[in-house]
């Protein structure tokens, strides 16, 4: 059966562009129409500019017509999380603080996409400054899960996941600090990959927690994730943490056969209390699948993983409190009207510009760094972080990849956890370790809950083992047809 344009993949549309079966303008129009038709319900976009997209598409068609296409991806629109800069487009970070801010420059990752001829399409909703797991912390709108509009899409890259699932974008960029790509991908039934820390430039990603943040692709197939990642991996001299790594052929790796049997680690700490039956069932199915493929299942232990949340909720707010100090109402952003003293500008602009979760984390982060508490909190958390990293590297002595749930439960109802902080933070239980250890992780659609909500499985790889990770994910994906299922909108 033939999918409508908006549910085709990067790989398919790239081929069709090459074969001149479709033009970039037609593709752009399809996404504009689809977004117009569905975003009233989904609310994934904070901003989009149909004119601009059509103008970009026209230029791409001209390039292609004269044989000057920049890459096979030339002419394909891609949605961007509204924490990643695109020159001349708004950057709000879903915060009142940046309500009228326009970025004068492109993020490194966006430069890479533009270099391939891809067309940045729209600004996608998120939890304010990427702080949250439900996209309910956006100052502007609440994004709905396309599979069930009552439910959250996950977060913080909720807009990116929802737009991709809803066919409003072929693919999107998200960012992942504690699970912010993988968790919404799982909830929305798309593929979300958090690459190895430093593999994709953070330059131009509004910083939340610098030592954890990472940009990654959100797509409907593993192949598309491979295609995008290929383009995103790049050494950016403007990001001191950007790795100088020659990317292998990720897409090529998908179809390669392993030479040794796959060893899949199952961390026992990730299957304990709190894991819902719905999710358990999906992960069990995946375990069964890999077994059936001749993989060796190995129970492993990540003994310090239960401390991950505590470590995360010290390190991330601490870094955030400093990263967000620049939002002061002086050079850009919201400035309180009544202030008649620069100090008052700070107090009032930040009080008015930041939402409750941002304030909470900035206050927490300020506290743990403040005089007398640094050693007890931040320094200790950094040490425990070392133990968590060590756990993973010990585990990877025995296994090739780690398989686990992404989240304890399928997408919950909007408003359900907004008042229960710790329960909300528990959403990140299985994803945080990957960020603390800087590892690559991917969420792949793994099935559905009894309520028909998508549930993902998480695969975690060794540092820079993206090719192996994608291959493993691809194996599962191709044996199932979850990627062909779409929400009814």
């Amino acid at each position, binding site marked *: 059966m033939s999918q409508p344009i908006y549910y085709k993949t990067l790989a398919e549309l790239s081929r069709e562009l090459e074969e001149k079966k479709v033009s970039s303008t037609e593709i752009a129009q399809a996404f504009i129409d689809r977004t117009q038709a569905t975003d009233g319900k989904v609310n994934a976009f904070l901003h989009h500019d149909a004119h601009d997209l059509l103008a970009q598409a026209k230029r791409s068609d001209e390039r292609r017509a004269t044989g000057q296409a920049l890459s096979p991806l030339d002419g394909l629109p891609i949605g961007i999380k509204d*924490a*990643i*800069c695109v020159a001349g487009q708004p*950057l709000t*970070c879903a915060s009142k603080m*940046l309500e009228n*801010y326009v*970025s*004068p*420059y492109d*993020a490194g990752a966006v430069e890479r996409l533009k270099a391939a001829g891809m067309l940045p399409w729209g600004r996608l909703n998120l939890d304010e400054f990427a702080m949250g797991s439900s996209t309910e912390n956006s100052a502007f709108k609440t994004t709905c899960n396309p599979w069930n509009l009552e439910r959250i899409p996950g977060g913080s890259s909720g807009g990116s996941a929802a737009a991709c699932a809803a066919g409003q974008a072929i693919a999107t960029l998200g960012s992942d600090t504690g699970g912010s790509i993988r968790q919404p991908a799982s909830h929305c039934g798309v593929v979300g990959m958090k690459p190895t820390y430093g593999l994709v430039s*953070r*330059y*131009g*990603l*509004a*910083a939340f*927690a*610098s*030592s954890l943040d990472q940009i990654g692709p959100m797509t409907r197939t593993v192949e598309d994730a491979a295609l995008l990642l290929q383009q995103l991996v790049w050494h950016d*001299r*403007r*990001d*001191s*943490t950007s790795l100088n790594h020659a990317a292998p052929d990720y897409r090529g790796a998908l179809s390669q056969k392993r030479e040794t049997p796959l060893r899949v680690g199952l961390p026992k700490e990730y299957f304990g209390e709190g894991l819902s039956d719905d999710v358990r069932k999906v992960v069990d199915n995946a375990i069964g699948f890999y077994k059936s493929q001749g993989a060796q299942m190995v129970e492993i232990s990540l003994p310090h993983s239960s401390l991950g949340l505590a470590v995360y909720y010290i390190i991330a707010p*601490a*870094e955030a*409190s*400093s990263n967000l*100090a*620049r*939002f*002061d109402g*002086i*050079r*850009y952003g919201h400035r309180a009207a009544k202030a008649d003293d*620069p*100090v008052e500008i*700070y107090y009032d602009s930040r009080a008015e510009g930041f939402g409750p979760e941002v304030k909470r984390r900035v206050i927490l982060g*300020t506290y743990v*760094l*403040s*005089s007398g508490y*640094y050693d007890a909190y*931040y320094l200790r958390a950094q040490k425990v972080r070392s133990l968590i990293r060590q756990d993973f590297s010990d585990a990877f002595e025995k296994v090739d990849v780690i398989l686990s749930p992404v989240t304890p439960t399928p997408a919950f109802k909007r408003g359900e956890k907004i008042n229960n902080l710790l329960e909300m933070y528990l959403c990140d239980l299985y994803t945080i370790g990957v960020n603390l250890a800087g590892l690559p992780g991917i969420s792949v659609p793994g099935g559905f809950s009894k309520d028909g909500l998508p549930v993902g499985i998480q695969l975690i790889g060794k540092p820079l083992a993206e090719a192996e990770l994608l291959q493993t994910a691809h194996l599962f994906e191709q044996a199932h047809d979850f990627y062909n299922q779409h929400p009814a909108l």
Partner: protein
Amino acid sequence: MNYEPVIGLEVHVQINTRTKAFTRAPYVFGAEPNTLADPVVMALPGALPVLNKEAVRQAVRAGLMLECKIAERCKWDRKNYFYPDSPKNYQISQYDQPICIGGAVEIELPGPSRNVMGAHRKVKLTRIHLEEDVGKLSHFGNASLVDFNRAGVALLEIVSEPDLYSIEEVFAYLNSLRQSLTAAGISDCDMEKGQMRCDANVSLRPKGTTTLGTRCEIKNLNSISGVRNAVQYEIKRQARALDKGEKIIQQTRRWDAEQGVTQPMRTKEDAHDYRYFPDPDLMPVVIAPEQVEKIAKTLPERPFDRQRRFMQQYDLPYTVTSVLCPTCALGDYFEQALEVYPKNPKGIANLIANDLLRELAAAGRPDEGALPVCQCKIKPAQLAELVKLTDDAVITRQSAKEVFAEMFAAGDDPMAIVERKALKQEKQDDGALEQIVRDALEANPKAVEQYKAGNEKAINAVKGAVMKATQGRANPQTVAELIGKLLS
């Protein structure tokens, strides 16, 4: 009571790099406001710092000039505080692992007179670290304006121990620091341009005691006279307070140059809770000993070492070396000239210290001080040649002055000028000269009479007449001999 002031200085010095400490935005002095900014300088969302290699190299050079130990490993920390001139509201600095550790600044105290060398002493340094500058605030009525051009410029913070005990020492310290850093080309240290700024920690203690008193920090001393006056004021203020039995409160004070007083600054109780933590955006720097050695080879001699050497090696008087050595380029100039003509160091040194410096001063633009020696049209070899021509009696001293003036104006070779202006000294056996002397003696009978009566100086009138008649080209010695011969 009799008090001894104890002073420690924190000196911020802008490093001469083309770009800023953590981004490629350029820096030049005096550009239009906010035209040297980029996403990093303006701290836009998403901007990230990257460390400037040259800033690190210059910091190492500064450390070596100032006898510091260079840290094998140093890292970058965020110093968190809010201020409108601070774009990120944190400063990237070095907290517990600075790039240079310890060190010393040799100072010279005023001697008993200008031509006698004063006592030397080494002032201990605590550390030097690398950090970034903030923007510039200026005030207009009810508003302040912020220009971020300066924001992000690489700064050295040079922290001394409380090891200075008088205004004179403070002055000598700043001078010495400036001489060392400019000699190495690390900074221009121009206080007027904000390239060197100073905070002073001042405390008093009864003379003869050793425990430190409570200190006050005086911030933002941006001129030599500001430092001098503020520290002087603060010493007096504290002495008065102590005499009255008051306790000194540890506080930060601001120098009000107009009123000539230091005043407590509005200090929030959180002022010193900077919440330092390692900057996750930046990686540590590891400097191998071999690298330090390589960098050390790029350093000039320390100014005081050079002065001692000049005095010893070339037998130059203290006064001349204290003109030549503080400015590295001048000492270099001297030694370059000496390479061409090593016979007369004193002659070359004097010509530089007197004539050249006078002309350079006169040639400078009023607002910029003397013309730097590197812009002088006379090259060292040419200056050496001039001294040699004089020493070889090819030209007279009188002519040398004329040649020098021409050289300074046009940069021509001295010999070319001598030939063009026919300034070559007359040969001694020239009969013409004897005739001129004869004429001069006849024209000055009074002087001859007085000379014969025993007044030796009287004959100068005759010599003067000869010189005038020869347009200064006669060799004075020959003239004297001829006079002696003719009058005997």
